[in-house]
């Protein structure tokens, strides 16, 4: 029989190990972990640094099927220093992949905009692959109101 103290220790140890309880309430569809795995696959597992990527989403919207997004990366976009690709993933869509954009020095400015689907309130992650091989990420959250997700 486990005592209360043992249980507390056990849960404490699990939390300390970074093992969340998500396996208890795993929903159908993607979890943030799937988005991270997908992003790692796209970027070839390179180390990710924060900063340098700005992602602009509306703070809240009831038009979940067409959410405007603008992503810009701080880069001079010269022959020696440019953005190779921008990958965009969503943490809680049924499948995490949104899009990948391939750029080069010919673009002059690393800024793209498009429209995406978000089925519920969630975080969108943009990862920029730079020409020197480093990967920079930026995140933004969008609240979906009105109950009509993009699945319809």
């Amino acid at each position, binding site marked *: 029989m486990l005592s209360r103290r043992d249980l507390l220790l056990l849960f404490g140890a699990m939390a300390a190990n970074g093992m969340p309880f998500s396996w208890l309430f795993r929903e159908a569809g993607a979890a943030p972990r799937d988005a991270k795995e997908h992003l790692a696959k796209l970027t070839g597992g390179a180390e990710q640094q924060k900063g340098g990527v700005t992602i602009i989403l509306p703070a809240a919207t009831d038009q979940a099927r067409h959410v405007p997004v603008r992503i810009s990366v701080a880069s001079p976009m010269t022959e020696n220093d440019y953005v190779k690709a921008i990958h965009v993933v*969503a943490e809680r*869509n049924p499948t995490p992949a*949104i*899009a990948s954009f391939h*750029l080069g020095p*010919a673009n002059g*400015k690393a800024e793209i905009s*498009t429209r995406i*689907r978000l*089925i519920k309130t969630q975080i969108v992650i943009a990862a920029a692959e730079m020409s020197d091989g480093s990967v920079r990420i930026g995140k933004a959250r969008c609240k979906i109101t009105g109950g009509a997700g993009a699945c319809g």
Partner: protein
Amino acid sequence: MRNPIHVKVPRTAAKNEVVRLMTKLNHPMESGWRQRLDGQTVPKALAGRFVCLFNGREVFRADLDSGTASDPYLSFHVRVAESGEFRFVWTDEDGNSIEKIARIEMKEG
């Protein structure tokens, strides 16, 4: 479908100016997430590949997946050093492609 591609390209630009280009395709972009009332999943059907070429050279490419909205819209930038034509090519998963051409001229002086 009538006029499925829309593009917006400035008519003129100064040398080495960075111009903003916009394009939109009329396409349902079925995500493969939807279910019909009988429980059948609507099959995925995307126009997943967009390429922009300037005088035959690729300047921008996008691979769009299920998270992209229907009637996909894209805006991006290109530095232009000469007059020429932009080709906007959208391709779906079956390999059918559709394209539109827009010219840009260098400003005098």
